[in-house]
């Protein structure tokens, strides 16, 4: 007894593409330097990037190799000082792209420039200018205190003592590290550790900061602290930030631009306001009835997307149908028990992108 209507979504996606095309042109212009309409320089430029893995199947010796295309020709660029969100489900090619941009993986073909360097050609010079935070992996030393770890990183990155002292003081204050400086990393909570990780990634004043799932597993206050810090960082120091996340709130709080990747291709690349105006504005209303719900006569802009036993799910666009109008209308339907209004999860939005782009 499940019925699905995908009309509204398809419409939204078309809207996206139109916007994306316009902005792509604008950005290309910015890249060529003929127009200052976004921002001056380009921090990250990626063109037709492909990565094919050769995976052995079967036994370790006699198995045949199979090709898996992780990235199928993606192109995008990020302007200096921009915060770009990079989203997509697991296996979409996100982490492959991040690895290539960080210089730890060599692509099959394509052009990548971060600043004026090709990441995998001059690994050391490249990584000295970027900062990377992997949410699930530490770059500090488990057995050392945070302060000792930062000291070692100073030597590894060759940060001069004066700049180190300045940056350390600034980061300690901004990330509230004072109380945990002398604790060993092993003893830190996840939220404390993540703040220390971010400080560790920024000691050497990187021009580009890559954040891979920086809020995964954190409690709500820590998430807020991380987001606030990244926002300030961009504002005060003009650091370019590339952010991957599964948390839509991260994107909402930070990203000015959202690149959605799936099946190794870019599904959409658009300013955040556009995403907000279309897909993100969508709301979901769940209505429970005491008996089998009747057939509903919904206004334009609202569609019934699911019916399961005694509950009905309605997707609506609040710009066309204000929530209170819809609620008022449903309240009049006999047998209504409960109403809930929410927003679609990021996975759901992307799943719909997929449904429309898969073929």
């Amino acid at each position, binding site marked *: 007894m499940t019925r699905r209507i995908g009309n509204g979504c398809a419409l939204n996606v078309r809207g996206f593409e139109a916007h994306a095309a316009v902005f792509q042109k604008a950005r290309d212009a910015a890249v060529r330097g003929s127009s200052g309409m976004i921002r001056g320089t380009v921090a990250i430029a990626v063109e037709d990037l492909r990565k094919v893995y050769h995976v052995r199947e079967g036994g370790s010796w006699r198995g045949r190799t199979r090709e898996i295309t992780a990235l199928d020709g993606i192109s995008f660029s990020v302007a200096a000082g921009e915060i770009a969100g990079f989203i997509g489900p697991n296996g979409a090619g996100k982490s492959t792209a991040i*690895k290539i941009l960080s210089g*730890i993986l060599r692509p099959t073909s394509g052009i990548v420039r971060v600043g004026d360097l090709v990441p995998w050609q001059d690994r050391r010079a490249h*990584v000295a200018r970027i900062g990377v935070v992997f949410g699930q992996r530490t*770059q500090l030393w488990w057995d050392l205190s945070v302060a000792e770890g930062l000291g070692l990183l100073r030597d*590894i990155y060759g940060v001069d003592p004066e700049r180190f002292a300045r940056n350390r003081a600034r980061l300690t204050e901004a990330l509230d590290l004072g109380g945990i400086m002398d604790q060993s990393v092993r003893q830190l909570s996840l939220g404390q550790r993540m703040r220390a990780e971010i400080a560790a990634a920024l000691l050497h004043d990187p021009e580009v900061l890559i954040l891979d799932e920086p809020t995964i597993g954190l409690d709500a206050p820590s998430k807020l602290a991380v987001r606030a810090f990244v926002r300030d960082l961009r504002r005060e120091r003009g650091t370019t930030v590339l952010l991957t996340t599964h948390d839509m709130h991260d994107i909402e709080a930070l990203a000015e631009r959202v690149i959605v990747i799936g099946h190794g291709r870019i599904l959409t690349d658009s300013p955040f306001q556009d995403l907000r105006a279309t897909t993100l504005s969508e709301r979901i209303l769940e209505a429970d009835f005491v008996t089998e719900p009747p057939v509903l006569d919904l206004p334009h802009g609202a569609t019934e997307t699911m019916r399961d036993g005694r509950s009905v799910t309605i997707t609506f666009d609040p710009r066309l149908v204000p929530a209170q109008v819809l609620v008022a209308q449903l309240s009049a339907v006999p047998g209504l028990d409960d109403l809930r209004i929410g927003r679609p999860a990021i996975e759901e939005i992307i799943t719909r992108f997929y449904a429309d782009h898969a073929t």
Partner: protein
Amino acid sequence: MLDGLVLYRRMAAASIAAQLRYPGTFVLQAAGNFVTTLLSFFGLWSLFHRFGSLGGWDIGMVAVLYGLVNVAFSVAETLGRGFEIFGGEFVKTGNFDRLLLRPRSTLLLLLGHELRLRPVGRFLQGAFVLAAGLHLSPHVGWATVWLIPWAVAGGAALFLGILIGQAALCFLTIEGLEVVNILTYGGVEAGQYPLPMFGRWLRRFLTWAVPIAGICYYPTLVMVRHADPLGMPMWFGAVSPALGFVFLGVMVWAWGRGVAGYVSSGS
């Protein structure tokens, strides 16, 4: 280069601090290491006690061999811990990516990963046996003592090369293979016996493929002024420790190939 040394010193200091954080464990491990190596010499000594000689070689000569190979190996063990655990702790877990994100040579970073103090037990015991062996040998003069640091350096380079080669192999097999113990612990075992005790295939292997004889047997002949029964000229023992550095060079090259392969395959 200088900058690298400074960094290495810092990383080593941090590693030592971390090990001394649990002093009880450290003392127990160092003591265990000392006892293990002491016992292995007790085994050799028992053979002498029962048979009078070790294949015609006197105990002084065998003690020098034993001391050289153990001191050299303990130095390599101290420096190369990062390579020894590379498969399990870096490749399998993906932590090698983290290392690649640092603007430094991967060799330097792995050397600095852990400066292990535990082999100090093996080192002390080996040094003691070495000194006793030189004392017992009649022909040792100050003129040949200069060979000791040269042979130990060559030996440390050789064993470090084996550990680096083992780590490079991990790019292919993910987990470090027990087979490599043949060259590390097995190399120490083979190095402490005089070379002529072995069959020809093993002698060639230990001289030219993995030149363990070059860093202990031949230099020892020079030190105790004993002609090689197999006819190798005496001067060879003065230059043969260089073979350890050649071996290290080959392994460093293999390591570079391994890292390049890792970066392009992304596995």
